[in-house]
């Protein structure tokens, strides 16, 4: 209808008082996550804390450029190559990414049946998959956990893929609603696409156990479901890259053909470089080539080919044994600091005399903690204590340091004691 109206009178775009084509364009609502940082920056209070956006900070509260990254930058400095990458990105980067995600000795890699393209970090990888799903699995819908990173909904919406949800977080236990999850897996039509967080679930920090994963995998086989793993925190969750990829290993062992959206934003600190990889396990090498070619066809009218710099850093690090081993150390260092802060925050809350259980703080894993605080309590944290977080009660552990953890604990206690 809109098209017909527009065809009859495209003048309607011009007929506003301001004689502008754009008169009818409304201001977009603020992004819930990025809006938090904006508000934080505008606050001048000395004790302010930003536990909103998920970017790692040192114990001094500073952004961190990993040493392995600096060394890689020096190594590649002065290179004379800035020509276009292929549409599918840097081949060496793709190979390293796949090995990291699936395991050095993965059968699917030896069989050469994984289609992989370099993508614009995790977002870009998810978007390529969503557009691919729309085009090649047009009858399917995507099942997204509740809750999830809010941009997941935007991605599949803009890709015009119908969305549904499955239960994930249990507010009563502040843990996994495994029963609800399995029920929803069962209810979904056979062959549905499920978005799973491989590790360090965002925003809850609640991950299935290996036993849970095995049951999920088995049930998926029965239902013929397709798993897309969003892996944005490999290495960052437990400190061990192999351990963090357990869910993927389990699914591969069970013979699933999965897809994986990887990001190097957090685990290599390459946020602004936009480095990621989308890989899809196919039947055979021919199909992998075909799938890759179609993914490239989606990328070409979006950005032609992906940016070089970040991918070059990642391959430089992963192909140099010394740099790779340095990276393992550094990512473990980041994970350990987070784990330490979890313990300290919980201890401080208990010391403050809180009557609530804060066990979930140390049970949860990764960058985020789903505190269980209600929106009104969050508002008070911000208004009274100048602590900035998203209204769902998600705390970015990376924003906590030994200097401010006590302040945070006391503030949380203040707003949550009854």
């Amino acid at each position, binding site marked *: 209808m*809109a098209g*017909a*109206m*527009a065809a009859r009178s*495209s003048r309607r*775009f*011009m007929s506003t008082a*301001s*004689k*502008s*084509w*754009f008169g009818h*364009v409304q*201001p*977009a609502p603020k992004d819930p996550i*990025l809006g938090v940082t904006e508000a934080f920056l505008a606050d001048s209070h000395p004790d302010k804390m930003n536990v909103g956006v998920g*970017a790692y900070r040192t114990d001094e509260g500073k*952004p961190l*450029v990993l040493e392995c*990254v600096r060394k890689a930058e020096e190594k590649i*400095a002065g290179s004379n*190559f*800035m*020509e*276009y990458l292929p549409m599918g990105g840097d081949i060496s980067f793709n190979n390293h990414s796949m090995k990291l995600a699936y395991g050095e000795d993965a059968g699917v890699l030896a069989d050469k049946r994984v289609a992989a393209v370099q993508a*614009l970090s995790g*977002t*870009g990888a998810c978007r390529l998959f969503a557009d691919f799903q729309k085009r*090649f*699995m047009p009858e399917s819908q995507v099942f997204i956990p509740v809750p999830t990173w809010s*941009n997941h909904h935007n991605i599949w919406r803009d890709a015009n893929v119908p969305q549904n949800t499955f239960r994930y977080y249990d507010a009563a236990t502040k843990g996994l609603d495994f029963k609800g999850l399995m029920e929803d897996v069962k209810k979904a039509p*056979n062959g549905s696409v499920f978005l799973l967080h491989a590790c360090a679930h965002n925003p809850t920090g609640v991950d299935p156990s290996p036993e849970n994963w095995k049951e999920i995998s*088995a049930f998926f*086989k*029965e239902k013929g479901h*397709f798993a897309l793993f969003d892996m944005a925190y490999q290495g960052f969750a437990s400190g061990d890259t192999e351990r963090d990829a357990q869910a993927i290993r389990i699914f591969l062992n069970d013979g699933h*053909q999965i897809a994986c959206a990887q990001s190097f*934003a957090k685990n290599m*600190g390459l*946020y*602004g*470089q*936009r480095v990621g990889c989308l890989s899809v396990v*196919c*039947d055979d090498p021919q*199909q992998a080539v*075909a799938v890759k*070619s*179609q993914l*490239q*066809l989606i990328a*070409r*009218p*979006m*950005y*032609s*080919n992906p*940016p*070089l710099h*970040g991918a070059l850093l990642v391959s430089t690090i992963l192909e140099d044994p010394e740099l790779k081993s340095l990276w393992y150390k550094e990512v473990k260092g980041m994970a350990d600091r987070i784990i330490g802060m979890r313990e300290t925050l919980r201890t401080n809350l208990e010391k403050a005399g809180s009557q609530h259980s804060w066990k979930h703080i140390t049970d949860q894993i990764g960058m985020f903690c789903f505190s269980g605080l209600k929106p009104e309590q969050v508002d008070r944290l911000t208004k009274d204590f100048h602590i900035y977080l998203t209204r769902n009660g998600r705390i970015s552990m990376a924003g906590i340091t030994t200097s401010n953890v006590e302040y945070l604990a006391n503030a949380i206690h203040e707003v949550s004691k009854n």
Partner: protein
Amino acid sequence: MTTAMASSAALTALASGQEVLRSGVTQKFSGLRVAAFPLKKDNVALYVKGKSTSVMSVATDVSRFESVTMAPADPILGVSEAFKKDNSEKKLNLGVGAYRTEDLQPYVLEVVKKAEKKMLEGGDNKEYLPIEGLAAFNKATAELLLGADNAAIKENRVATVQGLSGTGSLRLGAAFIQRYFPGITVYISSPTWGNHKNIFNDAGVPWKEYRYFDPKTVGLDFDGMMEDIENAPEGSIILLHGCAHNPTGIDPTPDQWEKIADLIQQKNHMAFFDVAYQGFASGSLDDDASSVRKFVARGMEVFVAQSYSKNLGLYAERVGAINAIVSSADVAARVKSQLKRIARPMYSNPPVHGARIVANVVGEPTMFDEWRAEMQMMAGRIKTVRQRLYDELSTKDKSGKDWSFVLKQIGMFSFTGLNKAQSDNMTDKWHVYMTKDGRISLAGLNLAKCAYLADAIIDSYYNIQ
């Protein structure tokens, strides 16, 4: 379920006398009791009651990706791939528009090396950019396009969002058009850069073509262009190349630009400029932006997509911007917020590296002057090569054909007027790689190869139909 689970379920079912069958599977095996359990989609495990249980697959998988066919090779990027595979010494890559030195080597600009060195020493962090990109870059790019003292900038009427080079910036504009001007048709030149159609297709925006290239003159079909723009329904969107039209190299004259602007205003159309070669066409950054500035000076609302792939040689770093120059500051703020809303589910925020390079070069007067000089050098080399090619063609071709279009065309590309069969001959016989529409990239040509290329063109033009 796993085969182990199926197996134990089968034993139970068979023991209790159940026959659990899936449709499509044969029921009778000479009276033997059969149980079947689904394993994978369309794959079935059969259990036969007897001395032992066993698993058989009776139906083959229907692959999830059965419908995925091999995509055709990209007509432009595929050319370089074919070139790499060719072993002939004589081979010449005039396919993709990437600048080469006189030695036919890729070229990293000196100012870019300096900027990168500065960035390395400065130890910049690698944090997320805001969704709209690097502020310093956005400021620099708008000023480069419109002029630092431009009224629209001073009045905050320019919404600038950093995009993934020209492609990404065009895509943001296209997605915005689909969302806010649904049903409006975008008119693109015939011919145009191949990826324009893909971009509007994937964004769900209908497009039509307006006449542009005149094969008789190997120049602009101005009357045809004006007629088609006139006939487009009022309030359409017209995609224009700001300078150095790709693939033809044919630009309207300043007077023709005035007439085009008049007509677009008269028809209440909106112009969408693709500016991928600012500075690269004439060698002058300001002159190459004059078409855009003309429109903006008239108070027209326009979209402009910019790229730094060619003029700063930043191909692989994907640096560009989408600009909406609109009627008021309030409108600009709203439009910017909606462009961001399109970018967020595509890639969240743009890559920082290339944007920092641009901000460093454009934002620092000495570097900026050095950049100007390098740009003039690159544009100058192209002009020199055009002259030599023209000289060779005119000398070798005794028929009196007018090859002067080679000199009149501007920028990286030349539309030779060769058709597909002739272009194929260029490749198959002469190992000259170009796109099938007859486009050659002069950036990939040097003086030494002009004679050879002239021979190839003359042979293909006259001997192949």
